[in-house]
């Protein structure tokens, strides 16, 4: 009887769920599916010039097949860019998330003086726009202007570290806040019970707080991986100041260069599809690896 009733209700609902879904689907189509579709379309085209390429009709758009994709994948500069970003990303991920975790645990520990002030000052750099932050650090790095003296912060050997420093400075506060907020939501009874059992503050941090935080740590890691893959602002802003950052330093910079500096929208579209594919694989790959560890309990 119960199941029969449920069935009729579902039957009567009919189009209603679709109606509820409609706004979301319309927005998705308009702002996600269509632009991506257009990018895919562009990535399959190229310009064909005849003769000198001057005057009317000398330049036409033709179907290119997968030519832009093979060119994108076989371009050594793109993979060199991935390597650079990988090194940069490893630095940023470990330092930024490590610091964020340590700060969150310290702030959450009992009896911290000036907790509010410290929390805000760690978070504050996140509120500084990326371009402003990079310019500020850029001025601090320039040998002629730096108050730190004549150190080659922007030399070929150090430029990756200098850039990672800007990202860590800007991102630690945000990630710390995510972790800290999660910690505050944990019932205090856990800690009390642990203390009665004789656990020290360090034990509580390592054996209770960190395991509870694992889902949040994964979330912040995924965010950071995606942000790293998309790194663009820092190197682009620093580039005019130094000889050590090329116009294709990161994969997205290459997309920008192709589209807006050398005027080849089609290669840019193909390269950005490749980048999107790789970032999907990386994000999902990471989630898959940690899935059991993080979400096994449920």
């Amino acid at each position, binding site marked *: 009887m119960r199941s029969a009733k449920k069935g009729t209700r579902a039957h009567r609902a009919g189009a209603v769920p679709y109606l509820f879904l409609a706004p979301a689907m319309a927005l998705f189509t308009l702002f*996600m599916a269509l*632009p*991506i579709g257009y*990018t895919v379309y*562009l990535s399959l085209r*190229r310009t*064909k*010039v*005849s*003769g*000198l*390429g*001057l*005057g009317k*009709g*000398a*330049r036409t758009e033709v179907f290119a097949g997968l030519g832009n994709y093979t060119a994108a994948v076989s371009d050594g500069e793109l993979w060199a860019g991935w390597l650079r970003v990988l090194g940069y990303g490893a630095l940023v991920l470990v330092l930024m998330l490590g610091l964020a975790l340590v700060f969150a645990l310290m702030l959450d520990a009992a009896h911290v003086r000036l907790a509010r002030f410290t929390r805000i000052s760690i978070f504050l750099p996140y509120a500084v726009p990326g371009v402003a932050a990079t310019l500020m650090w850029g001025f601090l790095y*320039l040998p*002629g*202007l730096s108050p730190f003296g004549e150190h080659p912060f922007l030399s*070929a050997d150090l430029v990756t570290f200098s850039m990672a420093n800007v990202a860590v400075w800007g991102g630690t506060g945000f990630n710390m806040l995510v972790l800290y907020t999660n910690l505050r939501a944990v019932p205090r009874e856990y800690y009390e019970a642990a203390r009665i059992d004789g656990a020290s503050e360090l034990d509580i941090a390592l054996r209770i707080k960190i395991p509870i935080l694992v*889902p949040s740590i*994964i*979330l912040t890691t*995924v*965010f950071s991986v*995606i942000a790293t*893959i*998309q790194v663009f602002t820092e190197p682009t802003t620093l580039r*005019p*100041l*130094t*000889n*050590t*950052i*090329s*116009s294709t330093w990161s994969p*997205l910079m290459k*997309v*920008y260069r192709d*589209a*807006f*500096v*050398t*005027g080849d929208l089609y290669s*840019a*579209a193909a390269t*950005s*599809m490749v*980048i*999107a594919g790789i*970032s*999907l694989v990386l*994000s*999902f790959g990471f*989630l898959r690896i940690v*899935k059991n560890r993080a*979400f096994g*309990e*449920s």
Partner: protein
Amino acid sequence: MRVNRLAVTAVAILTAALSTACAGGTDEPSAQSASQSAAPAGPVKLTYWTWVPNMDKIVSVWNQAHPDIQVTVSKQAGGDDAAAKFLTAAKAGNPPDLVQAEYQMLPSFVAADAVADLKAETEQVKGEFGEGVWSLVTLGTDAVYAVPQDSGPMMLYYRRDLFEKYGIEVPKTWDEYAEAARTVRKKDPKVFLGTFSSKDPGWFAGLSQQAGAQWWSISGDAWKVAVNDEATKKVAAYWGGLVKEGVIDDMPYFTPEWNKALNDGTLLTWPSAVWGPGVLSSNAPKAKGKWAVAPLPQWNAGENYSGFWGGSSTAVAATSPNKAAAAKFATWLNTDPQALELLIKEGAIYPAAAKGAALMTEAPDYFSNQPDFWQRAAAIGATARGFTFGPNVNVTYNAYRDAFDKAVAAKSDFTAAVQAMQDTTIADMRKSGFSLAQ
């Protein structure tokens, strides 16, 4: 926990997709589309993208005298970004009616079919311009793609006070310049005579022009590309040698560091163009009255050549519904005596029109110590030689930055960087299908 996982997954998909969507987007705010659909009944409304300072003041003089053609200035950032923005807007179908086009970018605009042929409209004013500058807007064809606005003949800016202090003569040849660079290093290891900028391909192009380079030329129905010609390789090898020797600095122009060096006297020369006073007065205000100009050093004693760095023209968009009105404004702006005077006074530019020189009487404020500044500039300008720019200068210039960045950082062979520019340029033209002459 399940919800959490879904959220994370969704975020992963969305963000990855967004990165693509952003990268592929071509949207450009279309403030000027309104003007294009304006009914012909009222006054014609034109939009004009430019980065000449105070252009709005100059345009308001035109607007008062011409109630039927009203021009609105939209201030641009200038440089490569402005060119990319115009090309993108033209592709998207909503370009401004008028645009400031640097000479080296004009062929790219023409190749993208983004600018109109103004041959009929400019027939009358052709005589106002020298042959050299006129060929920059015709590209050696029968068409006229823009009205020349200003030109940038190159000259040597130097710190007169510090030349005296270190006992250096103004170098007449590049050999003397190299010798002076060594002398300066010996007298004060903190000071450099000059710096090689791997960020300014236009500067390097100008120096190559002085040496007689011809990066592009048209032979029949095909392009001939010779970025790696002997003249260019000579220039590259010369600067590469000085950078490697450590007697010339390698910091790029237009950086905070460079400004500081111009100001505090640790950089003594700047081979630049006639528009230099504007840059010096805003970037090195403290050194006012201490700089002077001389002709560029020559490759062979007794020669007298210069090149061009920068300079731009006023072009009309191919899709503008009011081409005639736009052409009328463009010719007024760049040939009318009143407009030229305003361009000099308000815009601080060196007009390309021949009669502009007569209007330049008072030396720029920054060079009040050199009352004959403009006479010298005019004499130097007459010796400048340029070359035809090709249809993908943006590719070549970008290759310059990347190749010379590397060469400067590694202090390696500069002629290899020139070869990289040539190879990149050729590869790009071949990919698009341009006819290339061997």
